[in-house]
């Protein structure tokens, strides 16, 4: 494929990047390295600063302070049209007066590159839009427009391709299809993709590295599975998937296991899975890691597991799984996802139950009851 490239790609480095609008810092002292050739997702709720970060990298917004570099080359002061960076815009921004071919050729023509026809045709092949070359953007479906936008940016062989909520305008089915498509293109060309999204599932599906952003800062960064399995802040635990969180305090430690008391209940968490520095610890567990059983079966709880009594207040069957809401003795709701592999009775509303899970799945976070409430409010308002 002619679009793949011999030249070495280099890391994208952001150092102490800050952008203020008036007194508000949209991006606050952000330092970040995007490894060359990676598919990097910047994930966060709207207004968290992710789009501003992207626009600064694109050169469409000027940083208040800090630097942007590709490898060793500082591009902070370069204008947008001077940067080896291209963008797939939200809702695509295809030029409505130019046909697909000319849209894709636009960047090449501005740079007076030779063999425009050949390159454009090859690129349209890559995104499977060859027969559409002479159509106007408005004659294409959403998914096709999306691929044109990708082709138009990629043909310039940028060091970094920026994608601003690229799938936001597509319906769910098409979005899935395009996620796979984008991943295929990225593998084929090997360019660094920086992808901004508020859709956690999209970020996890496509990216090899996810950075969760909140209030202009990066809360946590890493491989999607690592972040999901071991969130390090209350925000991440709630924003990336769901979590059940119980505020408590540390009562002791035996070997690798830290003991935590929450609402009079004893919980264990591995020291290696605890990110709280003080004695105030929030205990967390993902809903699908919890096993729910009738209270009469409480003897069957494996030794060493964390266990919790409660009463079922809601059961919803979703096909793949059954979701329970269980009210604890102190009145907190716990969500449980149970895979529908059990033959026989499910628990019903009103049933007294026992919940249990392994300390290997438990995680500890810094913070207390007030942080839980605040985060819940922010998430309810923001997403």
């Amino acid at each position, binding site marked *: 494929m002619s679009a793949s490239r011999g030249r070495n790609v280099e890391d994208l480095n952001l150092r102490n990047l800050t952008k203020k609008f008036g007194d508000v810092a949209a991006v606050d002292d952000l330092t970040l390295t995007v490894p060359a050739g990676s598919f990097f997702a910047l994930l966060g709720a709207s207004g968290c600063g992710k789009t501003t970060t992207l626009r600064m990298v*694109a*050169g*469409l917004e000027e940083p208040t302070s800090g630097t942007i570099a590709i490898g060793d080359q500082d591009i902070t002061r370069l*204008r*947008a*049209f*001077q940067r080896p*960076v*291209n*963008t797939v*815009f*939200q*809702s695509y*921004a*295809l*030029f*409505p*007066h130019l046909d697909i071919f000319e849209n894709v050729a*636009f*960047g090449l023509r*501005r*740079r007076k590159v030779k063999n425009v026809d050949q390159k454009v045709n090859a690129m349209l092949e890559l995104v*499977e*839009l060859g*027969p*559409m070359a002479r159509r*106007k953007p*408005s*004659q*294409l*479906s*959403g*998914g*096709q427009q999306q691929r044109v936008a990708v082709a*138009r*940016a990629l043909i*310039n062989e940028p060091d970094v391709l920026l994608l601003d909520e690229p799938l936001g305008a597509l319906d769910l089915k098409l979005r899935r299809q395009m996620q796979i498509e984008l991943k295929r293109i990225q593998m084929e060309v090997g360019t660094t993709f920086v992808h901004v999204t508020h859709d956690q599932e999209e970020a996890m599906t496509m990216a090899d590295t996810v950075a969760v952003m909140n209030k202009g800062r990066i809360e946590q960064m890493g491989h999607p599975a690592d972040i999901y399995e071991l969130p390090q802040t209350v925000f991440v635990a709630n924003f990336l998937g769901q979590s059940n969180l119980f505020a408590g305090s540390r009562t002791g430690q035996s070997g690798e296991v830290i003991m935590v008391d929450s609402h009079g209940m004893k919980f264990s968490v591995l020291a290696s899975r605890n990110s709280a520095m003080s004695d105030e610890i929030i205990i967390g567990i993902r809903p699908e890691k919890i096993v729910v059983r009738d209270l009469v079966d409480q003897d069957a709880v494996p030794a060493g597991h964390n266990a919790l009594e409660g009463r079922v207040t809601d059961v919803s069957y979703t096909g793949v799984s059954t979701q329970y809401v269980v009210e604890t003795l102190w009145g907190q709701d716990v969500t449980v996802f149970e895979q529908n592999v059990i033959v026989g009775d499910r628990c019903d509303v009103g049933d007294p139950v026992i919940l249990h899970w392994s300390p290997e799945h438990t995680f500890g976070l810094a913070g207390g009851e007030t942080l839980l409430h605040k985060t819940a409010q922010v998430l309810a308002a923001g997403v």
Partner: protein
Amino acid sequence: MRWIRQRLLGVIAVLVLVYLFIPIAVVAVLSFNKPDGKYNISWNQFSIDAWTNLCGVPGVCGSFMVSIRIGVITTIVATILGTMIAFALVRYRFRGRSTTNLLIFLPMTTPEVVMGASLLALFLNLRFPLGETTIIIAHIMFTISFIVVTVKARLQGMDPRLEEAARDLYAGPRATFRYVTFPLVAPGIAGAALLGFSLSFDDFIISFFNAGTVVTFPIYIWGAAQRGIPVQVNALATMVFLAAMVIVLTTQVVSYRRRKALQLPPQALEAALPRS
């Protein structure tokens, strides 16, 4: 009941449109009249004399050409000045924004008689000779605002991301303007120019104040109204109206065709594609 009400609204809407065109129909019909007496206000006898001999009455075609000339010069100058202002308003921040807005808005709401009178007062005080120049000055003055409003609307309707995309794709400020901004705003500018020309061509009141001895087409009609308007005037006005309608409807049809082409179901397009 609901059915009747919906139809009723449609009927009223069509009647109002018909009402708007009744006088034009009268003008057109009377262009085929052979008036009985000097006033061409009631039907007498069919004739195509006026159409075959458009310049048959002295002064008609002369004044018509004067109006065309004034209209063209006015349109060119006012479109340039107005477009520049529209760009400044949409794309730049500057001091005195509300004063600027006001100075653009007021000419559209000031009665023509006041504008005509005040401009005449200026020219009289400066002892500036009245003529075609003063008419053109006046016409540019009152058309600029309409041009600004029309072009501004087009500019505001443009997705700013298109220009960002151009910049992202290695177009500097000039190339961005030339290849993206201008082609996208051009239809708006053309529409504004058409509006400007029709305002200038049809203006009577302000021209009358500042014309001196120059006779534009509307001034000719005004003068002729006292002693009877020649049938040729009806024919020329009908011609202008038809020409304008042809221009406007052609652009409408073209853009409708374009939109129609888009109404192909997307699935049909997807199906035309080889999928992996």
